[in-house]
């Protein structure tokens, strides 16, 4: 379809799996940490696994903060990549790390009660509002999650999940989208969501 799809090279580990998932859909992708390459893309993916503190250090070391804040095309943050999109996260030694501030919100440790952490495995997702990101994906579709921190449900929540407490499974604010789950590892449902994003 001739689109330029760029995965931001955050230095985190799940870049290959996101790239392979997109290639399975028949689109070609580029992995880059260059300002001009990222800015000229039609769609941008912001992947990430690991801790918010380490990821923000890596992003700052690559001078990517301003680049990511200036994007106007659709951007999809995945897992930690989604968490980096809000203003701050509790995931650091002193309990606060500044994130990219692409949208309002804060990441907190999941309060899972008696349930085990990390929240790991397939769980159901419910859309909170209409969005092209969830076209063709019915409520209670299973997606694959692995995380211990999450954004609580708030006005930017696009879809929610429940594990001890409800939390944001997906966020939307202007051109920025984020999913807490791993669409690249969520079977047909994940492929549908990635297709929806690419088709935006």
């Amino acid at each position, binding site marked *: 379809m001739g689109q330029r799809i760029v995965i931001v090279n955050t230095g985190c580990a799940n870049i290959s799996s996101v790239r392979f998932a997109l290639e399975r859909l028949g*689109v070609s992708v580029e992995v880059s940490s260059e300002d001009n390459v990222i800015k000229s893309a039609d769609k941008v993916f912001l992947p990430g696994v690991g801790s918010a503190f380490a990821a923000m250090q890596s992003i700052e070391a690559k001078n990517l903060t301003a680049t990511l804040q200036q994007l106007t095309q659709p951007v999809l943050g995945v897992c930690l990549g989604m968490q980096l999109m809000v203003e701050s996260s509790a995931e650091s030694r002193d309990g606060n790390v500044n994130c990219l501030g692409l949208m309002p919100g804060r990441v907190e440790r999941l309060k899972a009660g008696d349930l085990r952490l990390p929240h790991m495995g397939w769980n159901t997702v419910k859309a909170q509002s209409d969005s092209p990101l969830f076209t063709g994906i019915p409520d209670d579709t299973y997606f694959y999650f692995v995380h211990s921190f999450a954004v609580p449900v708030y006005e930017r929540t696009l879809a929610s999940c429940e594990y001890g407490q409800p939390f944001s499974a997906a966020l939307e604010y202007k051109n920025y989208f984020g999913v807490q789950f791993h669409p690249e590892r969520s*079977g*047909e449902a994940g492929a549908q969501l990635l297709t929806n994003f690419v088709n935006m």
Partner: protein
Amino acid sequence: MLAKRIIPCLDVRDGKVVKGVQFRNHEIIGDIVPLAEQYAKAGADELVFYDITASSDQRVVDKSWVSRIAQVIDIPFCVAGGIKSVEDAGRILEMGADKISVNSPALTAPSLINELHDVFGQQCVVIGIDSFFNEASGHYEVYKFTGDESRTQQTQWQTQDWIAEVQQRGAGEIVLNCMNQDGVRKGYDIAQLKAIREVCNVPLIASGGAGAIEHFADVFKQADVDGALAASVFHKGIIDMQELKSALSAQGIPMRKRHSLGEGL
């Protein structure tokens, strides 16, 4: 609701999937990539690949198959075997694995667990434990180098203590392989898994002994594990994945359902 996971395990030697009985007499089952693809399509929730020769041969074997698997399957997978350092783990994760599982090297150098946690995050770090019930002492005992019979040895750890240690060091998930039951298809070691569940606050995966659908139902209902791993029942076609999941679902055990979705690209 979080679904319980069904996890086929593929033991890998020299790029082929093999299966032994109580860790011995390995027979070749088939090529890795088509088998992985087949399980993903059949509805497996996750896959584990154990390179069973790596730790005991003191080498890191060719892992290029990890990348080939990451290209074709769309469910999470974990790679185990011969991961002795942050660099080893980094290579596997870069090739597209979601998690790495460490067994013997963590027993040799427990600080490896802390390092993996700090660099890659807790969600990547799976600790595999081979546990044997010693009838004489009445204790669950941890073994290492179980991939090679001639080098298999008992460690100084009792299983419950090792479980506490690995959690404190940053393990994100534990796969407990109950050696007395491995490969004999007489059911999971419910007594041991129940005992371990009480001291395990991270996801716990049962391994060793699956032979019938009821064994899966028992381990989820009685030991409250998060996932059940099995090899030969799937490789030999003794249990059909969809039949298993329907049966467990009918017994009230939450299983992932797959919806029919909209149009593709």
